[in-house]
């Protein structure tokens, strides 16, 4: 889900190193067992709507995963990520043709108590709740931002929408066989379906709550997650334990606990106990890095925080390996986390100045120009300036956070090579006189401006005239977003977060039919690429599929469509008495149910 509004994060890259932001509330207070055990977490931005159908930001996804429950989830500690059943009793039974999924639900799971239910008591979660939740995405009234995930994939669902989105009408491919069995029939194989069923938008939603609250359902969430909401505004959300949340005890072994890499956090104390371990969860939304950091270091406010990129040098003794300075190591636990995504700069191929050109000679020259601009990019400098020097630079569009990453791939496309760039320009007849104007579009704000100035600096280093590199600022992000969805932008610095650990999630960015207003903002159009994309889209993970993925990756690199990429790495710090291991990728907000707060420090010091 995170990818839905990824681009927003991009532009806000400077805060990005602090991907992990959380905090503990009453850290230095005495939390005796009789007291309300509180954990004070923090996130960068206010989530907006909490309706699972309208989750469009990272922070909204965290909230939804805390308030609602989905069929599947990623194991808390296992890396690489691995799915486990959550509300489902087991992994789905898939028919041989890969088209029919039969999913059995756990019994006796109940929604949180809420006045939306007839007697105020949360009723049992049943298969019909998932049918309803998925149908909602196709009901125009619910304004789903996630319908594209299932569009054209589930038998009869698109017709159901065309026929007026009447919930009493059945959908052929989406049925509750009985109270506890859900059956999904696909139009063609969709190997990523199980991943999608682990995302926020496929959470179980009780129909009576939507009907009871109407539009305000978005701020009156009713789910079966570990916590329920008691107050919510633009600066803070307060959640309390959902008394109806009764699940089997945590098994660290099953969650993929690795004592060697995770032993220092004191996670053993949660083994064999029933989550959640805290009574109250306060989540502050803090945009300003400085305010967040002050609040965290204070001790009695925010208890877990991502280290802002500009602070990285201040808190670290060494960056490789990442080691905290002793004064911080004494006070805080630390983890590093690489985002499952990356930042990149995309060319819009619709612009004949630098993109596709009807004249084959010019077309080839444009490609050389793009490649030269790519070589001019000093990824290390960008990493050093904006990501605390911790980011991971990799060639192409398949980051190392997915299994299909190719460690053998040539790194030439991410090497800083101003000499090579100048030579390439000269070879293809580009000079200061005939180089086209480059318009770099950006949202407002000092950081975006510095991004531009750095970009311009690299280009002037290869002889690009300074006045031909133009900054186009939009007054608001919404305006910029509109412009690029309509293919009006020549150059865009973006970021992308993957929805699931499968390279398909980023390969779709260059699939022809996804062109503007779709996610292919480059408007890349390569029939061979499209053919491979379509072929792989129905394949289960295999060595063959991986080979094809890598072939597509190389096409994008060879055509110099995109200057890519860098996966940001965040450092999270949290108080010693907090038992947790934060994750902002696929586990996301679900880690909050495993947080415990003790009255003394736990775990061992990091060296």
């Amino acid at each position: 889900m995170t990818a839905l509004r990824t681009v927003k994060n991009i532009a806000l890259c400077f805060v990005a190193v602090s991907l992990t932001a959380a905090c503990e509330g009453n850290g230095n207070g005495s939390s005796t067992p009789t007291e309300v055990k509180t954990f004070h977490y923090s996130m960068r931005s206010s989530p907006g709507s909490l309706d699972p159908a309208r989750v469009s930001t990272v922070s909204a996804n965290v909230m939804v995963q805390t308030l609602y429950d989905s069929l599947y989830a990623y194991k808390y500690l296992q890396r690489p990520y691995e799915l486990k059943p959550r509300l489902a009793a087991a992994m789905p039974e898939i028919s041989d043709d890969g088209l029919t999924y039969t999913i059995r639900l756990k019994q006796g799971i109940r929604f949180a108590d809420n006045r939306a239910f007839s007697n105020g008591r949360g009723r049992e979660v049943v298969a019909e709740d998932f049918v309803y939740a998925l149908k909602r995405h196709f009901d125009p009234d619910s304004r789903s931002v996630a319908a594209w995930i299932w569009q054209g994939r589930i038998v009869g669902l698109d017709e159901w929408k065309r026929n007026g989105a009447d919930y009493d009408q059945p959908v052929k491919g989406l049925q509750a066989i009985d109270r506890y069995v859900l059956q999904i029939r696909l139009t063609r194989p969709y190997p990523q379906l199980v991943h999608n069923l682990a995302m926020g938008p496929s959470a179980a939603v009780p129909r009576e709550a939507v009907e009871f609250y109407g539009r305000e359902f978005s701020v009156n969430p009713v789910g079966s997650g570990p916590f329920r909401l008691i107050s919510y505004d633009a600066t803070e959300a307060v959640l309390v334990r959902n008394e109806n949340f009764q699940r089997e005890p945590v098994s660290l072994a099953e969650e993929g606990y690795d004592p060697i890499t995770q032993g220092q956090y004191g996670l053993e104390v949660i083994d064999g106990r029933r989550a959640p371990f805290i009574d109250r969860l306060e989540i502050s939304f803090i945009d300003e890095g400085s305010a967040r950091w002050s609040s965290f270091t204070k001790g009695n406010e925010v208890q877990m925080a991502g280290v802002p990129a500009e602070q990285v040098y201040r808190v670290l003794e060494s960056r490789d390996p990442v080691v905290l300075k002793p004064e911080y190591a004494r006070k805080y636990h630390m983890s590093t986390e690489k985002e499952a995504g990356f930042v990149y700069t995309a060319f819009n191929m619709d612009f004949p100045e630098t993109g596709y050109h009807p004249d084959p000679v010019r077309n080839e020259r444009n490609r050389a120009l793009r490649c030269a601009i790519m070589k001019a990019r000093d990824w290390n400098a960008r990493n050093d300036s904006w990501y605390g020097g911790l980011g991971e630079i990799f060639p192409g569009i398949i980051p190392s956070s997915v299994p299909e990453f190719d460690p053998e791939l040539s790194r030439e496309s991410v090497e800083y090579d101003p000499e090579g760039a100048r030579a390439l320009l000269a070879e293809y007849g580009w000079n200061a006189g005939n180089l086209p104007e480059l318009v770099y579009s950006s949202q407002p704000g000092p950081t975006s401006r510095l991004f531009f100035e750095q970009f311009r600096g690299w280009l002037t280093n290869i002889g690009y005239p300074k006045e031909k590199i133009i900054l186009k600022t939009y007054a608001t992000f919404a305006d910029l977003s509109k412009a690029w969805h309509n293919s009006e932008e020549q150059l865009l610095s973006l970021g992308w977060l993957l929805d699931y650990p499968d390279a398909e999630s980023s390969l779709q960015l260059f699939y022809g039919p996804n062109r503007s207003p779709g996610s292919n903002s480059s408007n890349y159009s390569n029939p061979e690429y499209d053919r491979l994309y379509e072929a792989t889209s129905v394949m289960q993970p295999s060595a063959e599929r991986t080979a094809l993925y890598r072939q597509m990756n190389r096409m994008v690199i060879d055509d110099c469509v995109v200057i890519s990429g860098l996966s940001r790495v965040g450092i999270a710090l949290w108080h010693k008495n907090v038992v947790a291991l934060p994750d902002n990728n696929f586990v996301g907000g679900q880690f909050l149910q495993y947080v415990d707060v003790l009255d003394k420090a736990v775990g061992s010091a990091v060296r």
Partner: protein
Amino acid sequence: MNAAAEAMQRRHGDSLWNKAWRKFRHDRVGVVALLVVCAYAIVALGVVLGWWATGWADISGPKWAPLSSEHWLGTNIIGQDIFSRAVYSTRTAFEVGLIVALGATFIGAVLGAIAGFFSATWIDEAVIWLMGVLDSVPFILLVAAIAYSLQDSPWAMHIAMIATFWIGTARLVRGEVIKLKGQEFVESAHAIGLGRMTIIFRHILPNTFHVLLVQATLSFVAAIKSEVILSFLGLGVKDGMSWGLMISESTFEVLAGYFNNFIAASVLMFGLVMAFNMFSDALQDALDPRTVK
């Protein structure tokens, strides 16, 4: 002819300005402030003429370099020279300040004078209505909307400020004009049949010049200060560099222990704003016929 009126006006004007100049000369704080402003103006002029701070956009240095002979005030996060950027911003400050001050004062003077002259008619009502309306539209909405409607024009911020800053001037001028229009020299001008516009702009408005001058200096300062907030919100200076942008950049540096950007920009801005405020005060005192020295 209108000799009588002109003589009257000249006498009024001459004495005011002569007296003001005498008073101002004896105000040491005011004189020093004026000298400081002039020094800033020379720095700004040098930037315009390309004498210094030409390398403000280069990214040649290392990240966050400390003070050195090469980078007098160190470098910023992408290795740009902070001293050059701070100096270059002086030009931006004057550009923003002057354009907004002149624009706002001009519009304020014209509309205020017209409203005052035609006070208690529909023209006056219309101007008052306009002032009330613009006062009540949220400032940021106005700026954002203007920024959008002018696409990415570098003048969006200036226009937005002018659109709101003229109101204060217009209110004062309107009051002054209402006072003046009952005076003898205006009545004699009417008597000899001068056109109304001639009377307003040739005879009345020049007598409000002391108000305009003070208002212009106030708008200048307000513009420089508003620029900081607008740049922080991303609605400020589009191309080039400004103290506001430097301060915005620095908000995520100060807690990391890098104060160069913050100090360079705030100190330079503080100096200019302070000097201008002092100068404006001295000017106000000097031009006030009631103050006795």
